[in-house]
């Protein structure tokens, strides 16, 4: 079997993205995502976290600037798991099989791959069940199984545990960890600082479309250099008024 060529690092060179009415939603991003460390993207609502993932994954083109992968075959070496899993109206097995067929995996190889990821995600007994009959947590595990079956070099996850209870969240985190252990680069957005601490090796902190801090997780959570990142880590509320700069919760302004 041919080994796929490495697609990382992923580079952003002065990337801007404008939304409706020409409002800049991603402003002048210059980042490099390397293979290995798990990258967690945090920030308040509207910071541009999900948008950044979509730009990385190629679901949206940048308005200005360049996003480049090391290899031209990057499209087939990456996968994404969304906050709400979108599953086809077919069986659990058929959902994974469909994804593999899109990636031109030989039919003779698909069965073993599907059984492997179903075992890893604990969904083997649901293989023939309609995917949409699964619980929300199981559906998210299936979304991860589908992504895993593609053997991506990089996996993007957009708040994959946002609507899950602690038990289901724990299961998803274990799967993400297992994929990381097998060599998949993890890039994930989350609102949950505890989760960012548990899973993150490096953290990107975004605020209103700007990257304010990129640091190793330990550094980010203990001594963030940016004022707003510090406020965010300590749980202060961040907000802003039109035409004014960002504000912090006055109770914390001591």
């Amino acid at each position, binding site marked *: 079997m041919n080994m796929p060529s490495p697609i990382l690092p992923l580079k952003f060179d002065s990337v801007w993205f404008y939304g409706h009415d020409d409002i800049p939603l991603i402003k002048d991003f210059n980042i490099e995502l390397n293979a290995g460390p798990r990258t967690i993207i945090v920030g308040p609502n509207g910071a541009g976290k999900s948008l950044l993932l*979509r730009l990385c*994954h190629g*679901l949206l083109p940048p308005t200005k600037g360049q996003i480049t992968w090391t290899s031209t075959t990057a*499209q*087939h070496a990456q*996968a*994404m798991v*969304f906050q709400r899993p*979108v599953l*086809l*109206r*077919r069986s659990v097995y058929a959902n994974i099989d*469909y*994804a593999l067929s*899109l*990636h031109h995996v030989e039919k003779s190889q698909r069965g073993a791959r599907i059984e492997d990821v179903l075992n890893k995600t604990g969904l083997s007994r649901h293989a023939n*069940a*309609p*995917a*949409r*009959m699964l619980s929300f947590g199981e559906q998210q595990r299936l979304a991860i199984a589908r992504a895993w079956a593609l053997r991506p070099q990089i996996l993007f996850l957009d708040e994959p545990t946002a609507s899950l209870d602690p038990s289901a969240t724990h299961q998803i985190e274990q799967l993400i960890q297992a994929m990381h252990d097998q060599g998949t680069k993890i890039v994930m957005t989350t609102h949950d600082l505890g989760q960012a601490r548990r899973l993150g090796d490096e953290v990107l902190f975004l605020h209103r479309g700007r990257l304010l801090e990129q640091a190793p997780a330990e550094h980010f959570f203990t001594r963030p250099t940016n004022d707003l990142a510090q406020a965010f880590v300590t749980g202060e509320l961040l907000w802003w008024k039109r035409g004014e700069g960002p504000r912090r919760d006055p109770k914390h302004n001591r």
Partner: protein
Amino acid sequence: MNDIVQALQTAITLIVSLDANLAEIIGLSLFVSLTAVMIAVFIGLPLGAAVALLRFPGRGAVQVTLNALMGLPPVVVGLVVYLALSRAGPFGVFGLLYTPTAMIIAQVILVTPIIAALTRQVIEDLWGEYEEQLTSLGASRVRAMPTLIVDGRFSLLTAVLAGFGRATAEVGAVMMVGGNIDHVTRVMTTAIALEVSKGDLALALALGIILLAISITVGATAQAFKDRQESRGQR
């Protein structure tokens, strides 16, 4: 009032005794309508899906045209098909006028826009839900077409049923291009029209009851199928 009651009794007798003339008309009606709907499905589903997903110059005009053609007057279709198939027309050499084939052609023209327009709406709605995931998996819009048709099958069944309803209820166009010839092109709707004009209400009523029964049976079967699939989580 007595005439109507008597006609109803005769109609029921005709149905129960499986009258040969009645059976022949029903058989031809179903053959013509089902064939037309099948052809319309083969054209309408991919056409509707293509208009929903693909971006090409004139797409807006195609959308408007499809919607407009949903209300196509049957007599106009009948007239156009008649002119095309008549001896002086461009397809006159095939000798199709006053044959079931001519009736199928007219019904295909009437039914296809209905199926295509309803398919477009269903696929567009599904695409809104699936776009990011399918794009993420590497599916192009063309590759997504069969996927969305399969996944939207239960909603699309409604579109097919609407087409079938239009086909079975059609009278004007099939009368013009079929000629309502006994044992050749006489179908339920044209027979009802003829028998009423002759004052023979019994056969007309019998055919009317059967036409209604077919519509209800098809609709109920489709609904039962959808409900069953829904309970199995396939919707």
